[in-house]
């Protein structure tokens, strides 16, 4: 059960049960009870695995993205279009996250790109451990892309580092200009915002400038691209961004390889 996404409809705040009810019977520190300092982030284990993923991806020279949105914003359609446009130029592998079905992975495989489906069952977000288990099962080529399509959810995935290079949030013109204000964690966590379905703008009263301003309010300086996965509008900028980052990843692999083996052809490194 997810108590925050609303997917089960259960209002957790209506069913509170205080952990100290019935246990408040004069707890005193006896000689047997001692204090232990922990001082650890709750997500430290996830972040540790994510760091391993990040290292493995860098070593493989792969540019990895964590794609997030609410259900229906167009992540999979955009991915399909992206893979079709990059065919023969950049290898793309995909990890698909959904509660159930492998329909999205099948749509990706139909383009010719390898895709691995992760079904989270009751879970509402992917975590680093799931990605860690998926990586060895995908063909990852140096200079290529790994697209991780997260579970459709604008709340929970924001805080879970998967080891990606960047988080990308996709929201569509049918979702309202105030989306960034309503889901600030997601829009702050993302390094790139794709405003999708722009081909529908003539039929809507959606104010795209206001939507961008709201994204900037929550995340000053965030890059925003207006795209349409169906018409192809704006995709050139998105594809150029992908290609330039993939090239950088391919190069940084070579550098880290030299460093690991103690070669310093460019002089001493800090």
């Amino acid at each position, binding site marked *: 059960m997810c108590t925050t996404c609303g997917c089960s409809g259960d209002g*957790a705040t209506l069913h509170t049960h205080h952990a*100290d009810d019935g246990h408040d019977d004069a707890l005193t520190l006896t000689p*047997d009870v001692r204090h232990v300092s922990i*001082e*650890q982030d709750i997500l430290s284990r996830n972040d540790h695995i994510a760091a391993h993923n990040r290292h493995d991806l860098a070593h493989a020279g792969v540019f990895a993205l964590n794609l997030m949105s609410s259900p229906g914003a167009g992540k999979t359609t955009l991915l399909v279009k992206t893979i079709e446009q990059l065919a023969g130029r950049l290898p793309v592998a995909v990890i698909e996250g959904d509660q159930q079905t492998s329909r999205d992975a099948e749509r990706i495989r139909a383009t010719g790109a390898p895709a691995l489906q992760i079904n989270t069952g009751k879970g*509402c*977000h992917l975590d680093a451990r799931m990605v860690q288990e998926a990586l060895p099962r995908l063909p990852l080529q140096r200079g290529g892309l790994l697209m991780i399509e997260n579970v459709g959810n604008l709340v*929970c995935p924001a805080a879970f580092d998967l080891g990606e290079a960047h988080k990308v949030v996709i929201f569509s013109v049918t979702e309202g200009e105030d989306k960034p204000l309503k889901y600030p964690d997601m829009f702050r966590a993302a390094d790139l915002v794709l405003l999708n379905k722009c081909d529908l703008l003539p039929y809507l009263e959606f104010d795209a400038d206001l939507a961008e301003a709201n994204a900037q309010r929550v995340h000053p300086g965030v890059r925003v691209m207006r795209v349409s996965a169906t018409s192809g509008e704006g995709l050139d900028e998105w594809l150029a961004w992908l290609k330039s980052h993939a090239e950088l990843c391919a190069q940084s692999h070579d550098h880290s390889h030299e460093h690991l083996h103690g070669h310093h052809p460019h002089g001493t490194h800090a």
Partner: protein
Amino acid sequence: MHELSLAQSVVELIEAAALREGFTRAHTVRLEIGALSCVEPEALRFAFESATAGSCAQGARLEILPVPGQGECPACSHQAAMDTLYDLCPACGTAPLRVLRGTEMRVRDLDVE
């Protein structure tokens, strides 16, 4: 934020500490939860009870210590309390405050035996 997933992570941290520090039961668990972290404390409390079942923290008293939001203006350096992640600077009103405190989600300490 998915409180059940977080509560399970808290239990993992406590179990690892039990092995490391040599204790068998945690009586009290103290968490620091920032006001800007988007953790719903009552949902976390609810999830904690089910997540700790069968662990060394079963039945433990949970203390959630709130950390208020605090930010600094990148334009005029004014510091102010923050209620949301996108609060504008109350002094100059030109820029959203940069978060200094309030996004914490940490296990601070335990009372154990």
